[in-house]
C-alpha cells in the first residue's frame, strides 16, 4: 500500500493520480463513496454496482431459505405476486 499526497482544490476537489485512475478504471463519471473514518481520515471506495447487486441477490436468497421456500413453492409464490400486481 502506497501513500500519495494530493492537495484539495478550491471546491474541495482532489485529483487522483493518473496511474491509479488507469489501473482501477476510475474514468470520468465513475461513482466513488467517501467514508469518513473520523479524525481527518477518509476512505475512498469505487462503487461496484455489479457486486452490490450480487450481494442483494444473496441477501434475498438467504431470506427465501429462512422462509422455507423451495423451487416449486417459489414458482407458486411468483404466480400469486403476478396476479396481485396485475389486479392492483
Amino acid at each position, binding site marked *: 500500500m502506497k501513500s500519495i499526497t494530493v492537495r484539495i482544490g478550491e471546491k474541495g476537489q482532489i485529483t487522483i493520480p493518473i496511474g491509479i485512475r488507469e489501473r482501477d478504471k476510475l474514468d470520468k463519471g465513475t461513482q466513488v463513496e467517501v467514508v469518513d473514518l473520523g479524525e481527518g481520515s477518509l476512505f475512498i471506495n469505487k462503487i461496484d*454496482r*455489479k457486486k*452490490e*447487486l*450480487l450481494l*442483494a*441477490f*444473496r*441477501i*434475498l*436468497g*438467504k*431470506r*427465501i*431459505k429462512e*422462509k422455507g*421456500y423451495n*423451487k416449486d413453492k*417459489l*414458482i407458486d*409464490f*411468483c*404466480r400469486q*405476486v*403476478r*396476479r*396481485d*400486481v*396485475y*389486479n*392492483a
Partner: protein
Amino acid sequence: MLKCFVDTNIILIGALDLSENKISDEARIIDLVIEGKIKHIVTIQLLNEYHEAAKRLMDKDFAGWIRYLIVDVSKPIFIPDDVCKELEPKFVSLIPKEDLRHFVCCVIAEADYLISNNREFLKKSKNDVFKCVTPREFLSIEEFT
C-alpha cells in the same frame, strides 16, 4: 446480443441458489444479466413484480434497492405500457390476462427468448417469433463462455 425476458421466478430461484453458492441454471441466468451477456427486456409490470416479491420477502426499502440495482446494472430494454396496450387486444384471447403484458413486450422488443419456470406460461406463450423456454433449455441451446 440475445434479447431475453427473464421471469420473476428465475430471479428468486437464482437468488436462493446464489445464497447457497449453487451454480444452478437460474443462477447462471442472473449472472448473464449482471455481466451484460444477454439483454434484459422489462416493463413496469415486470419491475413491479420484482419489487412486490422482494417486498413480501424482505421489506419496502430492500425491494426498492434491488429493483434500482437490477435496472442500473442490466440497462434493460424498457417497453412502455402505452406501446404494449396497443398490441394487447390482438392476443387477449390467447394469453391469460396477467401474463399478457409480458408476452406483448417480448413481441414488441423482438425478443429471442422468454425464459421462465412457469410451465403454463411457457405453454400458452408458445409462438413462431421467439422461443419460450426454461433456464435449462435456454442454456442447452445457447453457449456462453
